[in-house]
């Protein structure tokens, strides 16, 4: 599990369809490198959430090959998936908090599932809740929290275990601009200090410009726009499309 890999994720000609419907994702070929920061953009219905589902291992593709952390996850037995999922942090669009657990217990869940001792859970979770400004709501249940508070709990839960890859689906959609910036800085800190690869799906173009040197992946009707071939064969030291270049 500690092997060094030159790529975090590699998609090769991946397609996804639900049942017998037409493909929602087609011919996706790209590579995500360790320590990079990616924005995934596209109109509603472009397939952003479907692509994220493939990334956080909630869905297997209908065709093509996916390698993650150096392993072919298509042929990986499902019993081995938890090992891979524990290296991911996910902020779901609908937060997916466990309703009958407090904010504290929700944030602590990844640590507990990974077998952390209870004594090693309390301080990190308390600090993380303090960082997202929810110390006073530690014992509150999701149903009693606002959308913004739930989103911050979801983000705290996603980053508490310092994942190798953070996948966030519209993570700033329910918070005010000040908190959105703060959360983005948290993702940046994870990316720069810990080396976490970050993939943020958003349609907020202003957000894209806040992270220098971030890479843009644009989805259009289930296909990645890749006019230069940079997504398929990305240069290690330059961006696919610089965020600063956006209007």
């Amino acid at each position, binding site marked *: 599990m500690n092997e060094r890999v030159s790529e975090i994720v590699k998609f090769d000609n991946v397609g996804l369809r639900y049942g017998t419907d037409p493909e929602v994702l087609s011919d996706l070929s790209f590579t995500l490198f360790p320590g990079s920061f990616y924005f995934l953009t596209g109109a509603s219905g472009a397939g952003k959430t479907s692509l994220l589902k493939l990334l956080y291992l909630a869905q297997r593709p209908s065709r093509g090959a996916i390698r993650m952390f150096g392993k072919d996850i298509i042929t990986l037995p499902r019993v081995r998936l938890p090992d891979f999922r524990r290296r991911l942090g996910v902020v779901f669009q609908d937060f997916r908090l466990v309703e*009958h657990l407090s904010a504290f217990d929700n944030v602590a869940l990844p640590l507990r599932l*990974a077998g952390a001792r209870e004594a090693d859970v309390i301080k990190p979770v308390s*600090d993380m809740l303090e960082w997202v400004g929810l110390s006073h709501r530690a014992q509150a249940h999701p149903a009693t929290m606002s959308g913004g508070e739930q989103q911050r709990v979801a983000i705290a839960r996603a980053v508490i275990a*310092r994942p190798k890859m953070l996948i966030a689906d519209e993570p700033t959609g329910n918070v005010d601009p000040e908190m959105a910036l703060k959360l983005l800085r948290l993702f940046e800190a994870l990316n720069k200090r810990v080396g976490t690869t970050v993939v943020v799906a958003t349609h907020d173009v202003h957000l894209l410009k806040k992270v220098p040197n971030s890479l843009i992946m644009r989805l259009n009707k289930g296909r990645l726009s890749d006019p230069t071939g940079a997504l398929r064969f990305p240069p290690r030291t330059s961006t696919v499309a610089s965020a600063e270049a956006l209007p």
Partner: protein
Amino acid sequence: MTELPTTAALLPDSASATGSLRGSVASRLLPQTRFGGPIPWVIAILIALVVVAAAGGLALRNLAENARADLSDAVTVQIIEANANLRASQTDAAAQALTGQKLVTSVRVVPEAELTELLEPWFGASVGSEDLPIPALIDVELSRRATAIEIEQLQALLESQAPGARVDAQSNWLRPVYEALAALQYLALALIALVAFATAAAVWLAARSAFANHRDTVEIIHLLGGTDAQVTGIFQRSVARDAAFGAFIGLALGLGAVWVLGQQFSSLDSGMIAGGGLGLRDWLVIAAIPLAGIGLALVTGRITIALALRRML
């Protein structure tokens, strides 16, 4: 403010954890229902039925074994002769002939007064008179159960001494009773098997329903890196708690019913019924029923959840 809290955890060693969650953590992952659902009570009723059926089956087995032990090593010789003097002489001769046999351990001529006393309730005061002669009886204890050939040999031996003698193996008299008791025991076993099946079915339905109700939680746990073993463990805690509650309530109900039935039968004051009392080994078997019920529920719950999880990624 932008810096990640320094205590945010790194999981170098624990990331490969696959074991169950700690008890207090696992118990919080599913909302607890405080035995409000029907399943603990369904299990209680089913376990109570098993306890009553098992106690009945064990009592019948004891009753049959005791009766068989009392009767199987003995034969009764009837001297059927209307003439009282002739009957008396034939009885003496038969008793003497039997006494010398290797298979025979004791011979007792049943006194006429004892026979009269036994039959008087049915035939009235005239029993044993010239008008209503009764056969003489000889109780013969054997060293072991006699085979059919040995019974025939005893019969042949007595032919010359007492032409009216008839040898009856006592076990033969009660064969229909034994067969009825055996049928009742099989019925009790079948009832236990049916109830065990019903218990497994109830747990299967409950586990499936619980899984469907908490599918979102299960998906979240999976997506956060929870293993099938961890998810199964969470549900098994719940199943074990419900099953344990139901099993011990059921045991109490069943024991209550057995005690009432025991009181009813003991008041019959019948020697045969007394042979159906339960011994220490029987009570241990009955005490094991709730444990077996909990075990069955746990296995059923585990299989049900494991099958449901296999349909998820």
